[in-house]
């Protein structure tokens, strides 16, 4: 099996290298065949690994020794357990769909081979991230996916907005990475190892210890470590206030928005926290912080989604909001529910993005929803799959999102942490907003009257099969994964030892008690019945009705409301002013400070004052001394005699 583990990332890396170096030579077809077969193989092998792990074969071992410092070995290695295997399947499956889709979407792009090289490389990096058995390799994968994300957002590098967005994405992520790296440094310092197994095993012994970060203040060690790690997760998984890069990342081609900025990379933070559950469980402070941050993201980002007009940006804000849901689940210690939602979300959100992409190519790269409408007839497959994705996202039973989202809401309800009150309000109200913006998108794009020009409308047609096939293949899990995996993932101990929950925080255990004794379809029906009676379901339906009323029945009404609520609309349109703030304070501030240090510090004080100052001093002294060399012999003779006298006096005295 070890060979298989190694093969999974390698069959993605090799095509990436070949496509990158020799893509120009082997041509488009060979490139995409190579990349697709590589990722397909990786997907097949991942499923094999998944089944093998379910059969009880887990693995934790070293691949190679990367380095050593102070006697501590730093190694690259794999940890293959149920959590890893789940992630592997999700990542490779979505990646495969996106690879196939790309053949259609990027057909006319001159950077075709480069694109395949990047997405194959991304799959490799993401696999290394989830398969790691230590913090170091995790960080490697973490930064590598960040790199590929940077390259792909800026894929169309002639577009000014794209290269601004990728720079922003990388820098904001780096802020998170700083926290992450400091967290890793503290882990190495206090645990003497970067190996998951070793760290998690000794974590309970270090609980309650204090650490002095800045002179005089004692802080709880576990809180400090987990907060720092979580800052990393906030960057990668785009949690407030480090979320600002994700909407702009939509400047990249749509396939990568689906793969990287919806399904996989942005969930790395969620995966990481779930993986670190033995550490996070040791600090309630951190769990509360996690829950608050998640709640803010889940609710407030959903609101921004209401006013977006760019189809991809609506989906992007939806992604932010859903990542917030997952984060809330993490804070509530419902790690399994978070991973469950991560998986279902990966399918239906990738589906929604790819459907949006299908619309975008049909309309010749038109992304403004105000210029769409009524596409249902022209694009039946896209329309149908978009409906499935939307129903799954909104949480209408029996679609996948219903189960995973309801599990999160139930878990928050049962949580006893201080922040769970806020979180419950946010995630419940969030359901209404989610439903509203989702159906707004659906109605504006596919229903109602057509708002595009004649030419575009006449040319609008269903995308080729390479585009619709992935849509259909993603629609299937968006329907079935929910009810198939609800019982094992939420009620069963699916992830086993990989996820550890302190008894006091075990919300999913308490949830299971409520359904005590029920199994299989009984459990599903009970969960469903409980769900449709609850507030979230009512909200979801209400959102549908309101959206229908506003965007199909009375299409003029949204404009009026928009004007009436001018102040709030402006806040939402400015996305709460995060961008303006960052641009002025951080980007501008750093440049102003740098300019100041350079012009004043280096040029004026050090060079002007010290260096050239001393040169001037030498100049003055030499000018003075030059006067002595008068050229008259009697001057010199006089000086010599004086000198002789002085010397004699000194020596005679001694």
């Amino acid at each position, binding site marked *: 099996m070890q060979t298989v583990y190694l093969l999974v990332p390698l069959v993605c890396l090799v095509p990436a290298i070949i496509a990158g170096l020799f893509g120009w030579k082997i041509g488009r077809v060979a490139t995409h065949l190579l990349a697709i077969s590589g990722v397909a193989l990786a997907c097949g092998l991942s499923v094999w690994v998944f089944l093998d792990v379910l059969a009880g074969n887990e693995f934790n071992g070293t691949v*190679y*020794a*990367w*380095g*050593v*410092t*102070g*006697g501590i070995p730093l190694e690259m290695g794999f940890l293959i357990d149920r959590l890893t295997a789940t992630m592997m399947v999700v990542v490779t499956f979505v990646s495969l769909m996106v690879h196939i889709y790309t053949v259609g979407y990027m057909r006319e792009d001159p950077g075709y081979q480069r694109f395949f090289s990047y997405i194959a490389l991304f799959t490799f990096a993401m696999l290394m991230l989830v398969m790691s058995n230590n913090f170091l390799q995790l*960080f*490697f994968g973490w*930064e*590598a996916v960040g*790199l590929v994300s*940077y*390259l792909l957002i*800026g894929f169309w*590098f*002639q577009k*000014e907005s794209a*290269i*601004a967005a990728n*720079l922003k994405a*990388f*820098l904001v992520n*780096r*802020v998170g*990475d*700083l926290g992450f*790296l*400091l967290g*890793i*440094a*503290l882990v*190495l*310092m206090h645990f003497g190892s970067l190996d998951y197994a070793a760290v998690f095993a000794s974590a309970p012994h270090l609980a309650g210890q204090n650490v002095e*970060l*800045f002179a005089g203040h004692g802080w709880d060690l576990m809180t400090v470590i987990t907060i720092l790690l979580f800052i990393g997760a906030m960057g990668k998984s785009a949690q407030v206030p480090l979320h600002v890069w994700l909407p702009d990342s939509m400047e990249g081609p749509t396939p990568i928005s689906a793969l990287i900025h919806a399904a996989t990379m942005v969930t790395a933070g969620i995966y990481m926290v779930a993986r670190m559950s033995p550490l996070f469980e040791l600090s309630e402070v951190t769990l509360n912080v996690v829950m608050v941050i998640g709640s803010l993201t889940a609710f407030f980002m959903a609101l921004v989604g209401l006013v977006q007009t760019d189809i991809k940006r609506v989906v992007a804000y939806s992604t932010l909001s859903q990542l917030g849901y997952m984060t809330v689940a993490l804070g509530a210690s419902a790690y399994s529910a978070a991973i469950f939602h991560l998986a279902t979300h990966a399918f239906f959100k990738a589906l929604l993005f790819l459907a949006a992409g299908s619309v975008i190519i049909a309309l010749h790269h038109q992304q403004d929803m105000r210029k769409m409408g009524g596409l249902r007839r022209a694009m039946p497959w896209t329309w149908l799959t978009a409906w499935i994705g939307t129903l799954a996202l909104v949480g209408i039973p029996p679609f996948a999102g219903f189960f995973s989202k309801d599990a999160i809401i139930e878990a928050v309800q049962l949580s006893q942490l201080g922040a769970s009150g806020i979180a419950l309000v946010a995630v419940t109200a969030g359901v209404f907003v989610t439903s509203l913006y989702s159906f707004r998108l659906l109605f504006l794009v596919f229903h109602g009257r057509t708002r595009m020009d004649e030419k575009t409308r006449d040319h609008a047609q269903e995308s080729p099969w390479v585009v619709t096939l992935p849509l259909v293949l993603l629609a299937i899990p968006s329907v079935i994964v929910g009810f198939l995996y609800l019982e094992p993932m939420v009620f069963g101990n699916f992830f086993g030892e990989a996820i550890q929950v302190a008894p006091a925080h075990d919300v999913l255990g308490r949830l299971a008690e409520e359904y005590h004794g029920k199994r299989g379809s009984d459990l599903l029906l009970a969960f469903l019945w409980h769900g449709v009676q609850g507030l979230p379901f009512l909200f979801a339906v209400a959102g549908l009705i309101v959206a229908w009323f506003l965007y199909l029945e009375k299409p003029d009404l949204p404009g009026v409301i928009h004007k009436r609520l001018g102040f709030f609309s402006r806040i939402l349109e400015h996305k709460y002013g995060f961008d303006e703030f960052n641009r002025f304070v951080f980007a501008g501030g*750093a*440049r102003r*400070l*740098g*300019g100041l*240090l*350079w012009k004043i*510090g*280096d040029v004026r004080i*050090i*060079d002007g004052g*010290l*260096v050239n100052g001393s*040169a001037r001093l030498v100049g003055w002294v030499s000018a003075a001394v030059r006067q002595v060399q008068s050229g008259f012999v009697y001057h010199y003779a006089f000086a010599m005699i004086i000198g002789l006298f002085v010397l004699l006096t000194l020596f005679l005295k001694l």
Partner: protein
Amino acid sequence: MQLLDYILSLVIWTPVVGGLLVLSTGRDERAPVARWLGLGVAVLTFALCLPLYFAFDAGSYLMQFQERVSWIPAFHAYYHLGIDGISMPLILLTSFLTIVVLISAWQVITDRVAQYIAAFLIMEGLVIGVFSALDALLFYVFWEAMLIPMFLIIGIWGGPNRIYASIKFFLYTLLGSLLMLVAILYLYFASDHSFSLLGYHDLALGLQPQILLFLAFFAAFAVKVPMWPVHTWLPDAHVEAPTGGSVILAAIMLKLGAYGFLRINLPTFPDASHALDWFMISLSLIAIVYIALVALVQEDMKKLVAYSSISHMGFVTLGFFIFNVHGMEGGLVQMISHGFISGALFLCIGVMYDRVHSRRISDYGGVANTMPVFAAFMMLFVMANSGLPGTSGFVGELLVILGAAQTNFLFALLAGSTLVLGAAYNLWLYKRVIYGKVANDNVAGLKDVNGREMLMLGMVALFVLALGLWPLPLLESIQVSVDHLLVQVSQSKLP
């Protein structure tokens, strides 16, 4: 084992003698002879350096490949050479980069070719001399002598403002060197007429003399590193120096200062090192943060990379003076890595300068459209300079941050700011120069890298990646020497 007994002398004098031979080819009509001969000498020297790695005993901290012959008997000065795990990688780096520099000059330098090549070869020998000298007088002679070729390279093949730059460079360095000479003379008398650097390690010294001597050597080494605030010669020197000069300056010369701290200051003045650690750490942290901010606003590509060098060298000195194994190993790895990365970045700027004859960022834009292969190389080096894992730039930064966190969380936080600031100035540079639409006719007419340029960039890229993906061999060869140095610096020498 005859060869191994004289191997250090061979690697020092082969390039020097080779350089003189190249010089004898004379005028530019015979430039091809000079080029091939020079390259041959450089490759031969590198080949001679390989046994230094393969026959090196990484399990011992003792000086290896030692040679000791009486040199000036009247002063008890010896021609004493030897290397340990600290100097060995630096020697390999030097001999490798000399090859790269000669390739980079191939079609670019057409004026006084033989002299140019000879200057680099002679400098290579002298620099290796500094890295392997174990006699203070010999060390000093190599140290001073190596400045002369550099001074000439900037002064003869440099840009329009080269005289100002080379004099600034010379004066800065001279001031430091003179204080170092005084300090060496003090040690000579204090040690009963000995110039043995290793002997100084065991010399008992009071705290006050230690501090004064520390500061005297500091003056020489800090200028070379360069540490804030004696860094302002570097951007000027880089801007005026030809590409090869910049490469050697950034990749090798700066390392000499840091090496001096390791070979002399830490083991000879351990008590002063501890007493002044706050001072060294403060200067290092200022360099890391202040200089990174300054790099952000540079409009000249070479100045930007020069400032980035200073910021990265701050990591080196920070790593040394937090006195733990992660920091010191990190500092050393950072020295090697920075040699490759800064060298590569100057090569990249050279590639563009040779075509457009401008270093101003605003004269570029959209280079990726016309030079895609070059853009890929530049991306790698820029990312390496931002400390991306998988490149050598990450290893040193990681270890220093790990070490700093153990000493003081605040140090780690400030040093870690480079994760953001470093990425900011590097990627913003990349955005403005490489990405975007074709900015002007110059960029539109650019030709992508030729085979020679691909070779030199590829050679460096290979090492940047290899060190990033598998730093174990390097870490293993330095660790025993670093451990020993940490023991030395932890033992008080107060009488």
